[in-house]
């Protein structure tokens, strides 16, 4: 018989408004952290449930502690198209990935070495969700991260967002999954 993991991941629904409004992930003295928290508390549910955005397949995932039912992490992503002077590229934007303040830096079932980090569960949930969407998403995933957000930058790197595009703002970095050189046409 398989053992239940100590977390539960599910898509958010309208009924989650209160729990999202109470979500805390920021140090109030750090403006870019507060920006994330405010987006989650106030805007992310509308972002996810916006009927006019259905084509972008927005997804908002909640990671809960199975025992306490506490909201441990929030993650959201959607399909986007990036455009440049010579063309466009389908991609998935990681809209937000956040771990509750009381769970930051922790593992599930504290003290047990083989239990994963909470941040790894949240990020793995996003990547699993992206890779199982129907119709399939492009494997090109990008995230916009504040340059001082060392934890998120490291987490992105761990999940393969190792390349960097131009910055959309001097304070924000735009990371994207690695790309391999295009296949050359086979010679006869």
């Amino acid at each position, binding site marked *: 018989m398989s053992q239940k993991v100590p977390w539960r991941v*599910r898509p958010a629904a309208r009924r989650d408004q209160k729990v999202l409004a109470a979500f805390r992930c920021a140090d109030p003295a750090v403006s870019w952290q507060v920006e994330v928290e405010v987006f989650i508390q106030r805007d992310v549910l509308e972002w996810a449930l916006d009927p006019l955005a259905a084509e972008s397949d927005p997804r908002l995932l909640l990671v809960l502690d199975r025992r306490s039912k506490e909201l441990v992490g929030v993650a959201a992503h959607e399909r986007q198209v*990036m455009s440049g002077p*010579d063309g466009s590229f389908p991609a998935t934007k990681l809209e937000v990935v956040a771990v509750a303040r009381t769970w930051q830096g922790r593992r599930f079932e504290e003290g047990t070495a083989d239990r994963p980090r909470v941040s790894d569960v949240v990020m793995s949930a996003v990547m*699993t969700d992206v890779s199982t969407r129907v119709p399939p998403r492009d494997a090109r995933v990008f995230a916009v991260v504040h340059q001082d957000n060392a934890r998120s930058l490291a987490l992105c790197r761990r999940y393969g967002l190792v390349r960097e595009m131009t910055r959309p703002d001097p304070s924000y970095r735009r990371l994207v999954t690695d790309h391999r050189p295009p296949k050359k046409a086979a010679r006869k």
Partner: protein
Amino acid sequence: MFSTLNLEAARLARLDEARAAARVAKAAGVLESGSEFADLQQLLSNLSGEIVGAVLEGVFPADAPAALWGALRALAVDTKRLWAVQASRTSLPEVVAGRISDVGPSSVTLKLQDGQYLAVPRWLARAVHREEVGDCLAVVTDRLEECSALAYAIAAFDLDASPPKFSPFGRAAPVRDLTKADERLLSGRPAPLQVLVPVTIGT
């Protein structure tokens, strides 16, 4: 680049309102030959195509220079003054502007400058990148006949506010534009996604 008054003069000319068209065109000429207009043209000519394109679509990019904000503001103040003068002598379309105070599934509520509220179809607001609470939006209504009118939305800026600050969140976030270098980076095959912890997504 033309003043909106010039576009209005063209509309009046199409309606055979020759005298009114000439009067509005003259007012437009005053603006277009002024120093504010020249300053704006000079500023835009030194900016990248991405920034100019964004401004023309009603989005003020966070990396645009503050001087551009100042130039737009100066021109808007002059245009508003001349528009008011012309509107008192000619039947110019009605322009109402305000800030979005509520967003519903099919409409946004615009709180107008006089404190009244106006419901605007959400698709109309979306077309000019204005569909979040706090966004500024203008609606122009041109009366055609007793029972018909043409209405269109224009992206508006609160020119008394500070230039907008960059935010990575939301669908209006300016994070999808690529440079040629970005395009080269993305031109290969994306590597498979990495999942370090097996996770099941419930319902």
